[in-house]
Structure formats: structure tokens, C-alpha cells
């Protein structure tokens, strides 16, 4: 029983990470109908920003985390202005190549700037152990789970109760109609990219004390987040969050009870099985925040 609970806790931690990254990806697709293949690199850059603020500048953990979130929020805005706005009217082929090229560029720039040695940012919470009836876990994992819930609740409130959030929701349903009724669609798209990049940075600041930061860290993460977005119903944020936790749990249980080497394969088989039964994703909706 303890064994099963431990695996479920691992799955929830991984699911939180995937969910925070997938949320940004789903938001971007929902609002501007674009798949950002550089989204994993937002997480990677967020990790390096957090490392710099925490380990190099010596800022306290919460301040360093918020600094990374703010820095990546600005980066997201700049990315939208420099890359996305230019390629948005183009075909999906151009969008795919441009975001992939950005991903490769950012990874190689990270190698040049930060080097290949992985960065580690252990905190007091990542070394402090919580022992509940023989289940041992770092306090940082508790922080990840609690913060993830808070972030998703905050996002839900934002989308449902703020003008900008409502505009994002409206754009996810009909961009043209929004433009007709006077919604500043470019402004909403800009804010969406800022928010998505900030979410990726929040994920990085939360889990970096547990895992390494290295130039390639975003590659596999993009794939997992992408899978969550597909299973959740393309562009449906709540669906992506639920699917991300499903993938995290499937991975953890597969690794714990079947095979660690094939855990990713098993998680993706689960994804394919879900899509065979529900081609529109778990929640049967096409698009909509």
C-alpha cells in the first residue's frame, strides 16, 4: 500500500510539471491556433533564469522564483512581437518551421551561454524530508503540488473573472467575431504568450530544486505537454491539465510496476488508446479555454 501511495505521489509531482507546461501550450493554441514547438525552451530558459536569480544573485527562493516568472513573462511578450506576430498570417508549415527553429536556436544558445554542465539549484526544502508513515518525500514536492493547485485555481479565476481572461476565452471560441466586436486581438495574443511563458517559468522555479536544468531539458517536456494537450482536447485548458496528470500517473505507475525503460512508451500507448476511443480528446470538446 505504501508502495502504491509513493508511486501516486511521484505521478502527481510529474503531472503537476506536465500540467503547468501543457497549460501554456493549450492557451497558445486556444487563443491563436498555433502550436509553439519552442514552449519546452521557455521552461528551460525559466530554469536558467531561476538558477541565475537564486544561485548566482543569492535572492531568497520565492523572490528568485517570481523574478524568473517575470523575466519569462517579458520574454514571452518579446517572442510574440518578434516571431509569432510575423508568422501568424502564414501557413502552418511556416509556423512549424519558425517555432522549431526557435527551439533549436534557444537550445544551442543555452549551450553557448550557460555551458553543458547541468545546473543544480537545491534549496532547503529539497533537502528537508517529510516522513508520513514511512512515505518519504522532499518538502519541495509538497510545495510543487500545493503551488500547482494554487496556480490552476488562479488561472481559472483569471479566465472567468477578468476582462483579459474573458477576452482570451472569447478568442478561443471565435477570433474573427472578437475582432468584429472590438476586442484587440493582437493585445490578447500578446498577453497569452506572456502568460504562457510565465507559467513555464513557474513550473521551472518549482521543480528545478528537485531536477537538473540543462540545455536540452525542454525537448522531452514539449512532447509530453503536447501529448497532454492532444488528449485533453486541443486548446481546452482544463482538459490539458487533467490529461497531464493522467500522463504523469500512467508514467509513474508504469515505471513502478512494469518497466522504467518503457514508461514513456506505456504513457504514450495510453494516450493513443484514449484517442482511439475519444478522438476529440478526453472531454469531447474541440477548442475553448
Amino acid at each position: 500500500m505504501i508502495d502504491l501511495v509513493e508511486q501516486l505521489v511521484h505521478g502527481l509531482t510529474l503531472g503537476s510539471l506536465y500540467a503547468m507546461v501543457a497549460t501554456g501550450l493549450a492557451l497558445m493554441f486556444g487563443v491563436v491556433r498555433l502550436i509553439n514547438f519552442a514552449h519546452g525552451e521557455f521552461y528551460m530558459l525559466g530554469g536558467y533564469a531561476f538558477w541565475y536569480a537564486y544561485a548566482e544573485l543569492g535572492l531568497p527562493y520565492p523572490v528568485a522564483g517570481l523574478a524568473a516568472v517575470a523575466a519569462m513573462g517579458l520574454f514571452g511578450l518579446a517572442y510574440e512581437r518578434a516571431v509569432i506576430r510575423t508568422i501568424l498570417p502564414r501557413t502552418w508549415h511556416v509556423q512549424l518551421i519558425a517555432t522549431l527553429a526557435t527551439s533549436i536556436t534557444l537550445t544551442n544558445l543555452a549551450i553557448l551561454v550557460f555551458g553543458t554542465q547541468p545546473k543544480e539549484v537545491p534549496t532547503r526544502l529539497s533537502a528537508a524530508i517529510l516522513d508520513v508513515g514511512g512515505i518519504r518525500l522532499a518538502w519541495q514536492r509538497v510545495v510543487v503540488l500545493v503551488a500547482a493547485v494554487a496556480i490552476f485555481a488562479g488561472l481559472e479565476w483569471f479566465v472567468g473573472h477578468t476582462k483579459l481572461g474573458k477576452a482570451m476565452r472569447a478568442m478561443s471560441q471565435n477570433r474573427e467575431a472578437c475582432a468584429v466586436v472590438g476586442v484587440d486581438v493582437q493585445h490578447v495574443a500578446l498577453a497569452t504568450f506572456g502568460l504562457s511563458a510565465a507559467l513555464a517559468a513557474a513550473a521551472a522555479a518549482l521543480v528545478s530544486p528537485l531536477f537538473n536544468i540543462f540545455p536540452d531539458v525542454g525537448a522531452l517536456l514539449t512532447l509530453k505537454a503536447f501529448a497532454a494537450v492532444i488528449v485533453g482536447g486541443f486548446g481546452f485548458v482544463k482538459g490539458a491539465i487533467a490529461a497531464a496528470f493522467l500522463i504523469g500517473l500512467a508514467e509513474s505507475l508504469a515505471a513502478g510496476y512494469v518497466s522504467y525503460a518503457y514508461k514513456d512508451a506505456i504513457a504514450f500507448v495510453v494516450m493513443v488508446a484514449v484517442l482511439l476511443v475519444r478522438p476529440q480528446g478526453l472531454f469531447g470538446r474541440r477548442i475553448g479555454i
Partner: protein
Amino acid sequence: MTRIGRGVIGIAVAVGLAVGLGAEPPGAGAQGAPPIRVGFSSAMTGPSAITGEGVKWAAQMVADEYNAKGGIAGRRIELYFGDNAGTPGEAVSAVRKLVDVDKVDVIIGQTHSGACLGALPVVKELQVPMVIEACSHPKIREQIGKNGNEWAFRVNPDDVMLANQFAKYMVQQVKTVSIFAQNDDFGRGAAAAYDAAFKKVGIKLLSTEFFDRGQADYRPVLTRVKRAAPEGVLLVMLASEGSVFMRQYRELGLNQKLFARGSMGTVEFLYQVRDSPNIADGLVEATYWTPALDPAWEKQWMERWKVPVRIHGSLAAIAFRYAVAPAIEAAIKKTGKADRKAIRDALEEIDVPNTPVGRVKFDDTHQAFINMLLVQIDGGQLKVLEKIPIQP
């Protein structure tokens, strides 16, 4: 495509070229006698890029060292680099690029076993000598020298040689073991070699788990290890993964005796865990290089690169200094030239007895037999427990 779109792709290509395919400009320093073109192939990008960066730095150090003395037999050394990304497919491209584009005379590499296995048929086809510095897959020896590929040579011992010795040491400490290994040719080759070696000495192998490099969370598999409850765990992994692994190992409260193959017992690893240097105390690594073998090299490295010396770069330097450089010198002395065939022939004949890693002389399977080391992490420091000569 827009200007910005083209720009982004342009930058990506430029950065890719700069990082993966970078090389000193051809002809640099060529005065009179033509330079000798030496290619280094390793993982310059991807999850294993840390190894390639070390190889690149070491290559620059040894080239500067020789060129400052006027080169080898008056011939300057020119460096070229290929990016194998640690994979067999990319290794083929890296070798072809080094041979067809850079026109190298000899290759040192490929660092990663899978890349080595991928490169072997191509070096044979293109007839370029390749000196392997760190690939320990047992199948390599079955293919080189008299076994078919006369263009490849290996300086480092393989995992069968290491496992047979290491298992004798391990059986004095533990009777049951679980293996946790990288899911690639290196990890799978080593796991098979240790499985066989454990049977010979009477160690019971309880479980073997493989992981893909770049994984974030090892806790699910550590829970499996906890369930299996072995007396010891053999880790086949590199320092970059090892640091995260060790933190999660301690998080779960595991306290099995730890044995390792890869680069856990290195200053690279200790640098990664410098905030908690005792985290891997007691771990014993089977290896063939440690900084204590060459303190001058370690000091020079630290002064130049400002980070602790890296094992894979150091092994590439060993291959250059004690195999390739003597072979080039012998080739020029004997034939007056240092072309691929002359270097290959000379590699078969060199005998360099007193190197920091032992004697470098290739047998008819093109395998050298340098010493094996058992290195322990003790009080956050590396301690050489034993130096074990490996017999042909």
C-alpha cells in the same frame, strides 16, 4: 517566408554549425610542411553534450601544447570536430564530415559506445584510422583489428575486462545486487557484462533497470529498488544524471552500498553535488582515469577552463598524447609522411610503456591494456583504492 522567419532559421543554422561542426580555420599555422589534421568526434549537442565540450577543450589544450613545441616532427596540429550527438546515426555523419569535408588524417572518438559501433563500418569504408578513447562496449573488440576492422584501435578497456575484476571486489562487500543502467549501448553492454561476471563470482542479480538519459524523476524506479532490497546497487551512469539520482536516492532513505561505472567517481560529479559533498560517500567506481594520475593536467585544465577537469576530455587527451602523437611521429620517421595509411600502420607498432594510465600498446585485436582503477568517494573526496593491471 518573412524576414524574421528567415532570420530565425538562419540563426539556428549558424548556431548549429558553430556548436556542432566548429573547427579551427584550415591552414592555420601551416608553414612549410603541411599540417596534420586531427579530427575529434564526440557529442557536441544533445543530452550528452557535456562529454563533447570536455573533448573539445582537451583537444585545444593538447594541440596548443604540441604546437607550442613546433608540432609533431615539425608539423603543426590542426583540429577539426564532428558532432555525433552520442548516437550511432549522427556518428556516421560526423565521420563522413571529418573525412570528406575536413580531410582529417586521423580521428579520436567517439566517446559513447553506440556512436562507436555506428562509426566502425564507416571508418573501415573510408579507410581512416580511428582511435577510441572511452567506448567500453564489449562488441567493439569483436569487430576491430584481426576481427575485421583494421582501421579502428581502442585505448580503454571494455566492460567485460572491467566487470570481471570489479565483481571480484564487489563480492567481498555484497551478495545481492540490482543494476541501474543507461538505456543505450553503453548501459546495456555493461549490464550484460556484469550479469555474466556476477554469475562467475556468486553475486545474485536481483533486478536490472534501464533509464533514458535526461530523465527528471528516478523515484519510481528507486521505489522498485527499495522493494527488491538488494545489498548493493550498481549504477551505470554519467555524472550529469548521477547528481539528481543521488539526491532522490537519499530522499527515499536508501542506504545500499553503491558501485558505479560511468563518471560518478569523478570531480565532475563532486562539482555537481558541491552543496552536499558527502551525498555519495562510500560509492566505489570502476574506471581507468582519475585526476590523481596527472595533477599537472588537472591544474592546467582548471586554470584554462575554470571548471573541474572532465574525464572524457582527459581520455581524449590520453589517446592523443600516448597513441596518436607517437604514431604520427613514428609514421613520419619511417615513411616521411603522416597520411592515413602510415598512421594506421604506425598505431599497430607503437609501444608507450610509462603513461599515467599504464602501457599503451595495441594487440592484434587493436586493443590496448591500460590499468583499471577502483576509486572511492570518501568524505567528499576521491580516493584511489586499487590500481589493477589488466592482462591481455
